[in-house]
């Protein structure tokens, strides 16, 4: 079974600084997809960024970018110029293969942003 590991239960960052959240995964598939989801306090979970494993280029979405290391099975999320609104639980997830309906989630990292 595929697993996703987030080794940092909690992280904190100063406003305007950069923080990196770690995620590793285990898969035997050659083609798969990876996601970072954000769950703000008492609010809906939303997709932050996604990466297709066949793409070598790291995905970016404004202040959010990933460092995808396929050989190391690592998929970290970098948040630049952190803002108070970035405070949330962040979940890393994988879709084991194309067409699979299910996602496998990590246990999450709680990010605190200090003013």
């Amino acid at each position, binding site marked *: 079974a595929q697993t996703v590991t987030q080794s940092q239960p909690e992280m904190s960052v100063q406003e305007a600084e950069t923080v990196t959240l770690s995620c590793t995964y285990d898969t035997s598939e050659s083609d798969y997809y990876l996601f970072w989801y954000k769950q703000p306090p008492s609010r809906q979970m*939303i997709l932050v960024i*996604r990466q297709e494993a066949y793409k070598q280029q790291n995905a970016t979405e404004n202040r959010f970018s990933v460092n995808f290391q396929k050989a190391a099975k690592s998929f970290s999320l970098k948040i630049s110029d952190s803002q108070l609104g970035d405070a949330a639980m962040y979940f890393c997830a994988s879709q084991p293969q*194309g067409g699979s*309906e*299910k*996602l496998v*989630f*990590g*246990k*999450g990292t709680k990010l605190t942003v200090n003013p």
Partner: protein
Amino acid sequence: DVKVTQSSRYLVKRTGEKVFLECVQDMDHENMFWYRQDPGLGLRLIYFSYDVKMKEKGDIPEGYSVSREKKERFSLILESASTNQTSMYLCASSLRRLFINEQFFGPGTRLTVL
């Protein structure tokens, strides 16, 4: 934008009660999911459905059942609620596609069983 709604944000029930949690999505998605979220455990899949009247067990189906009579609606049923089912329940939906399947989430229902 995809909208996934859940019938209640907060719910308090007593042990032994039958509990219904409802989820509705408005984007004609084939797939719908029920997750349970507990601190330190992340999201665990209870059941999912890939079509009307179709369902498949997830990782923790014990004590739960589901119903999908219409494409837009997916219900989670706790036949006899127990205190260890106190949790946050999240519903999600996605298109059924050959490749990437991003899931869209509802706001969650925080269920307390006394």
